[in-house]
């Protein structure tokens, strides 16, 4: 917990994971090998999954990657601007958000397994969607906390 007192710890964690995801998303956008892994037959009778599959095929993941970079840059900038360490209340909130993100991730694995087994044709789409939903929620929540605390 002591390491979480320093705002730079949160900033580094957010930056490392966001840069990793952004790099992957930007590289795979429009990449022919990635496109080949996606479903092209639209076998699932679901407008949502078919639209998501088209979204991936059109190479739009790079925009999500860029949004991650912008949000992570904002977290890093606000964290570095802060001169004081987080107090025990702020650490407890941060710890709860990290634990929640970790717990959600634990439940995402069996959910991903279930979704992939129910329709293997959409396995890449499913995994990409879960990754985007999970990290987007965590990144936005973390940015909200950092903005809220930047003056305290």
């Amino acid at each position, binding site marked *: 917990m002591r390491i979480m007192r320093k705002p730079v710890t949160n900033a580094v964690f957010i930056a490392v994971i966001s840069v990793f995801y952004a790099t992957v998303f930007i590289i795979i956008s429009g990449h022919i090998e990635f496109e080949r892994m996606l479903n092209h037959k639209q076998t699932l009778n679901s407008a949502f999954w078919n639209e998501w599959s088209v979204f991936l095929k059109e190479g739009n993941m790079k925009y999500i990657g860029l949004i991650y970079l912008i949000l992570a840059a904002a977290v890093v900038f606000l964290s570095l601007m802060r001169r004081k360490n987080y*107090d*025990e*209340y*702020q650490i*407890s909130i941060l710890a709860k958000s990290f634990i929640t993100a970790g717990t959600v991730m634990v439940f995402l694995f069996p959910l991903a397994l279930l979704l992939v087994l129910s329709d293997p044709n959409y396995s890449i789409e499913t995994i990409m969607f879960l990754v985007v939903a999970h990290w987007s929620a965590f990144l936005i929540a973390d940015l909200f906390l950092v903005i*809220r*605390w930047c003056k*305290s």
Partner: protein
Amino acid sequence: MREKALLTQKELSEKVGVSRQAINAIETGKFAPSIWLAYDLAKYFEMSIEELFDFEGSERK
């Protein structure tokens, strides 16, 4: 106690070195302070921790 001392949450937070949100969360019962923060608050108000915090009415965690 804070209001009796004519302090705002911001002023008290600066006296004991925590954020205003921490003071607000303690006052509204959303956050249980550590023993050291409880000690700092009690010391500031010149009373014991037992006098400052209502242990009887609060839930044991």
